[in-house]
């Protein structure tokens, strides 16, 4: 089995961190009648630095136009910006620009892929697309660790195609049980869709091992990189997956934009699943021919301003350096995990150490419901997420149904993490539990 990466934890130096924080005006906010905000919900959505906002404003005020249509000056400039942005996003994940399809987010990307596979399953795309077709007797493999957006679309595709849905289980430490791969990924498996990291346990998947099992039976691999893309260096071609999805708003960019990555040789023969303007070549009253990828998959007017903002976001991250982002968050995570370990009546969902783990720290309080804990923490200024975080099955697998989750970002400080750990210790006493 391939070893999981173990980043060398290293905080970003204080002065540099202060400068980074100054780029995020929202971090100066006070909430709930005057307590300073401590933003620990970057796993849900990251905050945006001013360069992102400025890039969006510059575009909207100076170059706004629909792209890939029209030949006037603005249309030309906007198209140029849009394609440059595609290049930036592609570089960020080690891909070629043509391998990046803009979508509304990770959810949009997975649904887009599922629509295409569904189209292939009904014969669209011709013989070249038969490799994507699913039918009765085939198997789609997912995992118990999936966010609903990388689970429900596959349930639906299974129901429509007649394929069977199977899944890898999660062990008590929150990691996927990769020992079961050979039983679950059978010869009939056509697709293996799995998360790069759980948005509950923070466990990072050993991608190479899953890819090897899938390749062994000729199955397509689909990686949900929503949680990892903004927090560690991600090289999608290097990981060897066929498709991947990630979101702008989890990588310091705006809402409403994300990408589907697809290996170019696959995108070239994959039929579209969404149809409309811009993605076609010739349209008659009865049929249409389609553009090459990625345009084939970008039907309709695109959210160009958001794409431009997202590109500024990944450039911002790249300037800091993703390895340093990862190291900083690892140092904060180590601190937070140590803090959590010392709080009585608190159970950690997920691996206890930083090896192969993101700064996503979900806990359960003995005797206090997460909604109540979250409300109390919120009154102290801590923005954490409570509930199932759109991942009900993994909670169930870990013997619970909800949790209180803190997720870190590059702009978080050791002081914030320490304050949060200290506050965790006051939750149960506040509710009169466990004295």
């Amino acid at each position, binding site marked *: 089995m391939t070893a999981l990466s173990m980043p060398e934890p290293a905080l970003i130096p204080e002065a540099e961190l202060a400068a980074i924080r100054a780029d995020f005006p929202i971090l100066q906010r*006070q*909430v*709930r*009648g*005057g*307590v*300073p905000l*401590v933003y620990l919900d970057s796993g849900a959505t990251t905050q945006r630095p001013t360069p992102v906002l400025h890039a969006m404003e510059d575009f909207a005020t100076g170059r706004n136009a629909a792209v890939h249509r029209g030949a006037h000056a603005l249309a030309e400039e906007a198209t140029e910006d849009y394609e440059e942005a595609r290049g930036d996003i592609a570089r960020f994940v080690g891909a070629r620009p043509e391998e990046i399809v803009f979508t509304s987010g990770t959810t949009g990307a997975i649904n887009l892929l599922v629509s295409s596979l569904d189209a292939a399953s009904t014969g669209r795309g011709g013989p070249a697309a038969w490799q994507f077709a699913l039918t009765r007797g085939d198997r789609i493999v997912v995992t118990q660790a999936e966010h609903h957006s990388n689970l429900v679309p596959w349930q639906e595709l299974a129901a429509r195609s007649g394929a069977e849905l199977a899944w890898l289980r999660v062990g008590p430490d929150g990691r996927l049980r990769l020992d079961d791969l050979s039983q679950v990924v059978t010869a009939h498996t056509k697709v293996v869709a799995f998360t790069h990291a759980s948005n509950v346990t923070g466990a990072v998947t050993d991608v190479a091992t899953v890819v090897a099992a899938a390749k062994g039976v000729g199955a397509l691999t689909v990686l949900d990189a929503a949680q990892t893309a903004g927090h560690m260096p991600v090289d999608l071609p290097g990981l060897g997956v066929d498709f991947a999805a990630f979101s702008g708003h989890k990588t310091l960019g705006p809402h409403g934009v994300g990408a589907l990555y697809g290996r170019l040789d696959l995108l070239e023969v994959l039929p579209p699943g969404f149809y409309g303007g811009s993605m076609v070549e010739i349209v008659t009253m009865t049929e249409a021919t389609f553009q090459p990828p990625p345009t084939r998959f970008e039907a309709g007017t695109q959210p160009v301003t958001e794409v431009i903002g997202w590109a500024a976001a990944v450039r911002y991250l790249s300037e800091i350096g993703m390895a340093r982002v990862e190291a900083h968050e690892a140092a904060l995570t180590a601190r937070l995990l140590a803090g959590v370990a010392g709080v009585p009546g608190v159970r950690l969902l997920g691996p206890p150490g930083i090896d192969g783990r993101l700064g996503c720290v979900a806990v359960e309080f003995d005797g206090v*419901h*997460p*909604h*109540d804990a979250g*409300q*109390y923490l*919120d*009154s*102290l*200024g*801590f923005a954490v997420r*409570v*509930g*199932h975080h759109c991942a*009900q099955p993994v*909670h*169930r697998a870990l013997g619970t*149904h*909800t949790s209180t989750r803190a997720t870190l970002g590059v702009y978080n*400080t050791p*002081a*914030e993490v320490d*304050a*949060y750990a*200290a*506050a965790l210790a006051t939750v149960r006493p506040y*509710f*009169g539990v466990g004295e």
Partner: protein
Amino acid sequence: MGVGGFGAGLGSMEQLYQQLILDHSRRPHGKGLLEAFDGESFQVNPTCGDQVRLRVTLAPDGARLATLGWDGQGCSISQASISVMNDLVAGLALPEVAALGEAFGLLMHSRGRGVPDQVADSLGDAIAFEGVSQYPMRVKCALLGWMALKDAVAKAAAGDSSPAHVPEGI
């Protein structure tokens, strides 16, 4: 860096977590499913996955709520709200149950601006949940049981005593 200060945030926490609410949440009333029932409902709070399954029986004339029993898991607001509701509605005529549900809905959507006196008076102990209305994300918690009640009563009144749909593997 001043982080994690104790500011005004805790003040409205006290309004939210009234003693009555904490007491009911620790020892909820009416918990336990009825074996035989005239109407059943299963409701989920989509943000947290909290669930309640609630069963009612009607009086022989079909005009009153006779008994209520429920089971579920949830935060103190949702559990206390069901418990207080349980105490308020047992034995009421069905239109009174509906009116009470509407009054509670009004309270929940008041955004902390209060409700007319007659509405407040009709609510009895349920007025303790007024603080919840200042937290839009928690309103669903307080309404969970009331939604289940409305649904179960409607089914009972329509003679539909079929079990509620509960997803497999939950």
